[in-house]
């Protein structure tokens, strides 16, 4: 059984040729940017930029489908949830599910619903920002996973001073993702052949189906993983894993000039953004204000 959406695609594109450390730094920077930025429009610009990078990596149609599906479902779900649970003011109701004043504020337990339940315009915006924060680094993360050999990711993480044992665990997890998917399919198939529908619509709507299926799939998967992990640990030990503090590497990893420029650019953008945010915070908290920084305050307040 082949699951193309989890297989690495090794091609000759600019993104493929980048050093894995550059890609990991880009990912880290995007995660920081996502957390620091508030305006959904700016976040959308970053997301579009990441999608442009994905285009240059010439991914297969299967992977595009998966990427867009995951992104759409994440964005759609978060936006609707935030639209209905948005509690900041001002807020503009678009559609009421429960009209205001239908419940008296003095009613026990549900008195808080006196304002009604509605989808709020501002909630959609907030949800959009939240979802973009999530899907931007997720998209780049998937792109790295799809374009890099796990061994190169291991080497890259190790070169970024992450302990080797941790890097090795990350690489092993990546290597076993396709196998775990295949194993989950066996469990689901065996349930179907015992007249059990793991994804019964009624069960999903009421939640119990999702819980039951998750538990029933996880139990054999985890038990199998534990057994596998024991064998893998023995196998790694028999090949002197962690025999000494240092280790040599078969492949020499050298960062190129182009990689340095990209890293500097991304780090520079993050540093600038964080500096802008810090200046605005200090100004708003009356701790430090300077007239020279007025344009910075304005741009940060309005766009960042």
């Amino acid at each position, binding site marked *: 059984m082949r699951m193309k959406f989890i297989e690495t695609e090794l091609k000759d594109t600019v993104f493929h040729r980048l050093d894995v450390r550059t890609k990991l730094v880009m990912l880290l920077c995007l995660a920081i940017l996502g957390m620091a930025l508030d305006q959904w429009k700016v976040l959308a610009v970053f997301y579009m930029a990441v999608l442009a990078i994905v285009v240059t990596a010439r991914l297969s149609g299967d992977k595009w489908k998966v990427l867009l599906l995951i992104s759409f479902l994440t964005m759609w779900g978060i936006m609707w949830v935030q639209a209905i649970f948005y509690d900041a003011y001002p807020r503009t109701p678009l559609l009421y599910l429960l009209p205001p004043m239908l419940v008296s504020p003095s009613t026990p337990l549900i008195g808080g619903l006196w304002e009604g339940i509605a989808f709020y315009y501002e909630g959609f915006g907030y949800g959009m920002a939240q979802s973009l924060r999530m899907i931007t680094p997720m998209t780049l993360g998937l792109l790295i996973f799809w374009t890099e050999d796990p061994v190169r990711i291991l080497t890259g993480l190790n070169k970024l001073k992450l302990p080797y044992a941790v890097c090795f665990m990350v690489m092993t997890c990546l290597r076993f993702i396709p196998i775990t998917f295949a194993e989950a399919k*066996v469990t689901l198939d065996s349930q179907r052949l015992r007249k059990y529908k793991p994804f019964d619509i009624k069960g999903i709507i009421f939640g119990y189906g999702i819980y039951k299926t998750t538990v029933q799939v996880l139990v054999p998967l985890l038990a199998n993983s534990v057994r596998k992990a024991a064998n893998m640990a023995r196998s790694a*030990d028999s*090949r002197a894993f962690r025999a000494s503090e240092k280790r040599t590497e078969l492949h020499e990893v050298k960062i190129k000039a182009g990689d340095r420029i990209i890293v500097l650019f991304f780090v520079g953008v993050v540093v600038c953004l964080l500096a802008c945010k810090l200046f605005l915070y200090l100004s708003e908290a009356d701790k430090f204000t300077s007239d020279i920084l007025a344009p910075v305050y304005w741009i940060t307040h309005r766009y960042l």
Partner: protein
Amino acid sequence: MIKIENLSFRYPTREEYALENINLKIKKGKFILLTGSTGCGKTTLLKCLNGIIPHESMGDFGGNVWIDGMETREQPVNVLAQKVGLVFQNPDEQIFSTRVLDEIAFGLENLCCPREQMRARIEWALAKVGMTAYKNHSTNALSGGQKQRVAVASLLALKPELLVLDEPISQLDPGGAQEVLEVVKKLSDDGITIILVEHRIHEVAAWADRIIIMDKGRIALNIPSGEVFKHLDTFQKLGLRSPKSKANLKPRLREAVAFAEAKSLRNSDRAFKEDKTKKAETMKITERSDYDKSVKRLVEVKDLWFSYDKKKAKNKEACALKGIDLNIQAGEIVGVLGENGSGKTTLMHHLAGLHKPQKGRVNVVGKDTVKHNAYRLAGSVGILFQNPSLMLTCDTVHEEVAFGPQNLKMPVEEIGRSVGRCLQMMELEDLRDFHPQTLSGGQRLRCAASTILSMSPDVILLDEPTSGQDILHIRKLMALCRDLVKQGKAVVLITHDFEIAAEYCDRIVIMSGGKIVLEGRPGEIFAADDTAAMMV
């Protein structure tokens, strides 16, 4: 090379000793076959050789083990790793890298080997196992035998004195097993000491210099392999397979493949393009007319073509199944044999309704699998997957066995009767309240088999149930299959075990490259002199 003196070991939670007073001397360069029934202490002995016991596994440890003059008690595991290499049953659980080159380098990098020396050792190790041409290949693209050879090479690169292989061929087809055994024998000839643990004694005995049999933590027999036929009673007494005068049963596979290549492929080409009824021909030793037509056909497969990549379905070479024709009647056990990747499991998944034919038709118990998926076929078809542990999802063995019948809405009394009968047949009554995942490997297999049998399906599909099992458990399962076919069921058994197929199957189907290339009765499929050899 290896000296073991008065070795005893007891796990903390057990009362009995796993190893009791073991004394053993093995000379450098010898090839030892270590065998015994499940739980006899083989794996515990291996752990003592590479220092996992006593360094990482707690328990009462007594006696001494020396490897190349080094006492294991005094040396850490990572130092012993350079002396003792361990190869495991499942190649997928010991390959960490995605490229062959990186996999071999893993151990060398851990030992801080300089880059130039590392490259030289990688080349040497790959040459030793005949995998030089695959240096830059993806490990995922290798066959089972090739993966196992890569696993051996990754240890060889560390230049161990002793290579310990724990059931390395149990999941391989005969071709893959042969590849691995040839490599191991060559290494032994080059002076590396080999200890190979295996249940498939009949396939390995001929390669070994000595055979050591363990029973209840003790050494029951330690003989040169040439003397094995003087001790057949010991093999029988301990419930082990008897070694054979010839290494293997050999079906007329080569003959059939040549036949298929000469005639059928051209026909299948045309059939595919012209959409005619003529498909990949099968070399049928027993014509279908020999079978009793009055008996109900439970499975009918006609001109089945299937590709995992739908876009490439029109490219016949990319198809996993190429024009399969197969009928299975009530009351027969059909053995499906063939190398890894020949399409056996894909065919079985079609019979269970897990795949839909892209061309052709599959009817199971009168139901077309295009209209009846796995869910709708439940109760009519049961499948025991290759890894039965993945089928066990409930909290107790009893709940697990009752899961299918309950979903099928069988009456409560009938569920009780069916579950009770299955638990009794599979010797699981005492374990009914245990969590299925806490059972031993053999018990999990029997539990998974019970989950199917409790639904009384008409067609029972078994995907390599003999892998890694000792002969007693295999015989019990096959005897049960015999009983079931007498009740009008049909059993389809995928196996690499020619001996079991020859002994228990009514009909053998041999697959190669997605086609059935040979079909007939066991006596006709296996060469006569080899079948005679089997009876020794």
